[in-house]
């Protein structure tokens, strides 16, 4: 191998939170002008490593060498000055500001003490030209789609002349063509000598775009290989530490009586005439495109929002209006946005897991800590929470484990119908399978399961029945054996109109 210079090097980096060792001696190397994939299941330590490299976190031990320079007390602004830019999954742009204002946040150009908007416009136009995209710099951010927002993020990285670009799941909200365009940009940046750390869970992208692959597990680097020499088996084995069984047995379940019966539900222009049913022991997936109105229907069923007309029955009785009564009736909902709706990150996992069940656990409003402990421990064991302790703050767990905490919160209320809105969004492969198995076993116990999912493969794998929504209406219903094309067909049909 020819000698190449390093854009970035970490030497023996350690990091722990409380007693939880997250990074255990990381030696990570990034060549100049290469695209390197960084892989690992949630909780492997990827994000912690990224945060240390970009200065958001300090390491306990070890060195970070950027461009041959050993850094000391790296902060985000120092890292930026050294040419490190991070593009996070959730964009960090201000929706109410223009593209131009977003591009130059914190580094406005000035001329004679005043802001030099002309100069900034020129620079932005130049960058957009380089990227080969056509975005009006005076457009408000909120008027742009997710793909354009992603491009603005990249443009923002270029305004600081990033030498090292960290991309965290950049394609998760992009269509196929948009992904292709992103790849072209990645190749162009690489040709210009930019080094890129590319984080993704999508295997085909890794093989398409990266030069080398590094896999992390349990806070260590398991191995680095040239992408050409790496195989999918090697990657998954390294990520999980064992052979993976990616198939889910669709057990034969006894499908019982109707649990949830939604009849002609309508609400403004959010959704119209929605009718469907969920039976005991059945897994129904509500499929469709993002923005089809599925979450809105779920919110109405769960009593978060009201609705204009229609009826909802649960076990033959009308579903009540307030969320706390709906929960008492036996319906619970794992919401879409874990961080904002599912989990209080600042309180312990244990407190999160009893929060909804307190009316049942407590007597006359006074808490019973012993009983709470039993409830929490049952969930920690049953859900295989990792680390297997509930004392840490909710935010300290990885994405998949945070989701388990939210599910645990609901299982403690002994529900009969679980609504799960995008339950595996931001959850890695290993934890995904665990969540699927859990869902299946809950259905086996005779609970009804209603899942909102935009992931077609997930839908195909887990659904007994698929209800497809399109533009606020029911587009059709398919059996669990239906194939991808049929589902997509119904979700998309008539979209052009």
């Amino acid at each position: 191998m020819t000698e190449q210079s390093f854009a970035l090097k970490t030497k023996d980096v350690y990091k722990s939170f409380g007693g939880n060792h997250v990074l255990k001696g990381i030696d990570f190397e990034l060549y100049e002008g290469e695209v390197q994939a960084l892989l690992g299941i949630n909780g492997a330590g990827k994000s912690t490593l990224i945060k240390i490299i970009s200065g958001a976190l300090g390491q306990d031990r070890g060195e970070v060498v950027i461009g041959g320079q050993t850094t000391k007390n790296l902060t985000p602004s120092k890292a930026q000055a050294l040419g490190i830019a991070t593009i996070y999954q959730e964009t960090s742009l201000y929706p109410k500001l223009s593209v131009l204002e977003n591009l130059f946040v914190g580094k406005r150009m000035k001329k004679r003490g005043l802001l030099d908007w002309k100069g900034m416009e020129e620079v932005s136009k130049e960058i957009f030209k380089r990227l080969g995209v056509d975005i009006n710099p005076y457009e408000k951010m909120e008027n742009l789609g997710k793909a354009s927002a992603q491009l603005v993020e990249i443009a923002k990285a270029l305004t600081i002349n990033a030498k090292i670009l960290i991309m965290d799941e950049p394609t998760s909200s992009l269509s196929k063509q948009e992904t292709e365009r992103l790849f072209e940009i990645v190749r162009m940046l690489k040709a210009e000598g930019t080094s890129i750390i590319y984080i993704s869970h999508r295997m085909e992208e890794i093989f398409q775009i990266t030069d080398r692959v590094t896999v992390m597990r349990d806070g260590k680097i398991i191995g680095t290989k040239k992408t050409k020499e790496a195989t999918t088996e090697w990657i998954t084995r390294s990520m999980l530490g064992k052979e993976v069984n990616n198939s889910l047995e669709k057990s034969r379940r006894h499908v019982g009586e109707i649990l949830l019966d939604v009849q002609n539900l309508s609400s403004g222009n959010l959704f119209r005439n929605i009718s469907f049913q969920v039976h005991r022991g059945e897994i129904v997936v509500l499929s469709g495109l993002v923005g089809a109105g599925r979450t809105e229907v779920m919110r109405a069923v769960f009593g978060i929002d009201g609705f204009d007309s229609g009826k909802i029955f649960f076990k033959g009785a009308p579903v009540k209006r307030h969320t706390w009564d709906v929960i008492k009736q036996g319906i619970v909902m794992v919401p879409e946005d874990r961080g904002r709706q599912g989990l209080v990150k600042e309180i312990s996992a244990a407190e999160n897991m009893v929060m909804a069940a307190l009316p049942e656990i407590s007597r006359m409003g006074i808490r019973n800590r012993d009983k709470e402990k039993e409830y929490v421990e049952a969930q920690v064991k049953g859900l295989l929470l990792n680390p297997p302790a509930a004392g840490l703050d909710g935010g300290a767990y990885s994405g998949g484990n945070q989701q388990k905490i939210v599910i645990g919160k609901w299982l403690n209320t002994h529900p009969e119908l679980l609504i799960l809105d995008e339950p595996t969004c931001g959850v890695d492969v290993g934890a995904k399978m665990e969540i699927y198995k859990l869902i299946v076993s809950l259905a086996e116990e005779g609970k009804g399961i209603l899942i909102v999912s935009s992931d077609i493969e997930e839908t195909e794998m887990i659904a007994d029945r698929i209800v497809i929504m399109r533009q606020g209406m029911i587009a059709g219903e398919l059996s669990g054996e239906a194939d991808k094309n049929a589902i997509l067909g119904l979700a998309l049909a008539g979209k052009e109109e």
Partner: protein
Amino acid sequence: MKKLVKNNFFVLILVLVIVMAVMSGMSDYFLTADYLLNATRFISETSMIGLGMTLVILTGGIDLSVGSMMALSSVCLGLTCQAGIPAGLAAAVSLLVGIAGGALNGYAVCKMNLPALIVTLATMGLFRGIALGISGGSAIPIPKSLYFLGQGSIGPLPVQLVITTTAYIVIAFFIYKSNFGIYLKGIGYNEEVAVFSGIKVTWNKVKAYMLSGFFAAFLGILFTCRVSSAKADYGSNYEMDAITIAVFGGASLAGGKVSFAGSYIAAVIIVLIRLGLTTAAIQTEIQSVIIGLILILAVAFNNFVASKKKIEI
């Protein structure tokens, strides 16, 4: 040691010891039982106004109307007593007025979704205005039977000290032990999660505002009984003290994080500083400057502690 510095409560105790040391250096009377016991009358009053505020801040809100509510409660007590209503019943009426005022705040903030700062700024003027209007601004004498609450002692301890300390213990214990406590914490940290968890968010928040009104009214009664007459100008700027106490005690104005023990100690410190400054013949205007500085330092310190913690997560 590093851990201790990050522990707000330890810092509070340290500050208290320093304040005590400085004060006893300034005056020979300070470290006597008589002086300290007398000081607890003021301490108890100030800490009681901080108790309600601590609860409201726990939900992520704020209540600027506490000082005015104290005056309104005082005037109500005076007027009902003057009308010949028995003292016990009159006190109960004042407390009910406090709860009703808190409910009004809570309704506007939680049900109508108006900003707490503006709502309670408005009711601050409203309550004060009503108090002035119905009393005509003059002092109203109260019956001697009520003096005990403000001037009497239980054993060696002033009545206020017993009442306020009991109130703190009961509330702190209740917050720790009850569903209400974890609900308020959950709401304070992340209201949307609380909604999705089936917690009665509005009702629980309204309860916090009602408790704040209740304690403000209670203080109105104790204060009136100490000075032997009711008047509409009591409690001006008390909201400032209340916020200082809560924040100095370790509360985050963003909600979710408060410390009742911290608030209590913070009240002790602030009153002792004020008494010390008065003993040293420093004008009240300068005292306000000093209390204001303490508030800023307290917020800065809390931010510092919070930023240290955030990095660990």
